[in-house]
């Protein structure tokens, strides 16, 4: 088995007396691209928030490269484990201000050439820098959100449905970008996707979550012939 980037041990999480994550045991391999698939409301986004310290588990432990999450300073953890949020939220202001945000939070400024390069990497034109970020299309905001998360140069990158509102071509470009970063920096990628074809295409490892539970995990090929009845039902008709 390769090194483990994130390890979950008996992790439970609930909010408002609602059990959202139930006894999660599993891991994500270091330096690889892994995917999480599962129906809406399975608890996928919540799992990410636990990894990045936005929420804490009620019980159980999460280890990042062997070190329990509680032993990290929250700020350090969040820079190490970055999330591109599902909502691709923009702050008011220009594209540049959004890109610069992670650095501004540390009292630094961004180099314009670096900003343009990042935009280019995610498939946005350099002249976008001065545009109002809130007026970009949903897909453009997703691209910007990815670029913004990259600014912190995280060791683990959590991508929450980052291509859900992109056309096929842009989707493909982002997949290539993520693969490129993964190869170049050895960044561990965990990618939540609704698209099982995408999971098979880009991920070496996968988790299938349903109803707050981790049902199956392993090599992505498990999606082709799952063991669990519920997973069989879920993948039926999705993979050709």
């Amino acid at each position: 088995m390769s090194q483990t980037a994130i390890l979950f041990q008996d992790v439970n999480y609930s909010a408002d007396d609602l059990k959202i994550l139930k006894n999660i045991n599993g891991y994500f391999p270091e330096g690889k691209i892994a995917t999480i698939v599962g129906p809406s409301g399975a608890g996928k986004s919540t799992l990410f928030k636990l990894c990045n310290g936005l929420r804490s588990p009620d019980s159980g432990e999460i280890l990042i490269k062997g070190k329990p999450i509680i032993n990290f300073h929250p700020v350090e953890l969040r820079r190490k484990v970055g999330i591109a949020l599902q909502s691709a939220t923009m702050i008011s202001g220009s594209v540049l201000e959004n890109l610069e945000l992670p650095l501004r939070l540390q009292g630094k400024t961004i180099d314009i050439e670096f900003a343009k390069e990042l935009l280019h990497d995610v498939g946005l034109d350099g002249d976008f820098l001065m545009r109002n970020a809130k007026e970009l299309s949903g897909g453009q905001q997703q691209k910007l959100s990815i670029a913004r998360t990259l600014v912190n140069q995280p060791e683990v990158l959590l991508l929450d449905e980052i291509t859900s509102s992109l056309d096929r071509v842009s989707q493909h470009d982002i997949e290539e970008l993520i693969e490129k970063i993964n190869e170049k920096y050895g960044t561990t990628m965990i990618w939540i996707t609704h698209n099982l074809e995408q999971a098979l295409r880009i991920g070496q490892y996968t988790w299938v979550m349903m109803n707050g539970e981790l049902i199956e995990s392993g090599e992505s090929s498990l999606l082709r012939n799952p063991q669990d009845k519920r997973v069989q039902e879920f993948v039926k008709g999705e993979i050709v």
Partner: protein
Amino acid sequence: MSYLALSLTLIFVLIPLVLSRTLRLGLEKDTLIATVRSIIQLLAVGYVLQYVFEADNIIFLLLMILLMIGAATQNARKKGASIRGITWKLFITFVFIEALTQSILLGFSIVPPTPQYIIPISGMVIGNSMVLGILFLNRFTAEIENRQDETELILTLGGTPKQAIHTQLITSIKASTIPTIESQKTIGLVQLPGMMSGQIIAGADPVQAVQFQLLILFILLTTAVVTSIMLGFLSYPTLFNKRMQFLKIR
């Protein structure tokens, strides 16, 4: 004013009552309650003031101020019910504002240290501080709610709670203090301030009335800005826990 004249002022209560009745505005009940309450409350205050002025005892004075602060806290806390511990935060803010303004006024002998000055000025300071508190809390809770995503975004990127709430905090402080500042720009041009009008009607020299009004206006500027800032900085930490997680507001 004679009691007959005072009774005749009730005509001004009858007008809205009649209008409300004819146009079915449904304001009768509230108008009546407001009228009765204002009569009782003001008369009671009048007698209490008379007593406190005559007694000239610091204990009564402090009790009176405490009562005002208590009432203001009680009134404003509902607006900030979603913020943990808002009651004592408001209380501390009002106490601080009162202490700050009075120590400047009395410390520099700007006004004489008698209940005749201290009580009315305290009333205006605490009353305005209360209104500002309500304006601020209204806006701040709305900003927190509407911009939860931004707060969470900044936290995920490794920002501190203060950075995550900064825009909401500044927007709310500005929005709540702007009316005070703006209204002072046109004061005297459109309407004469209530206190000054009262003094002039009671026979005071208009220039002296203006001097006191200016004093009050400047105090109210401090009151407005300090109230919002203080409440803001007391409130925002309770929105987060030690792990720098944004707590869902109740």
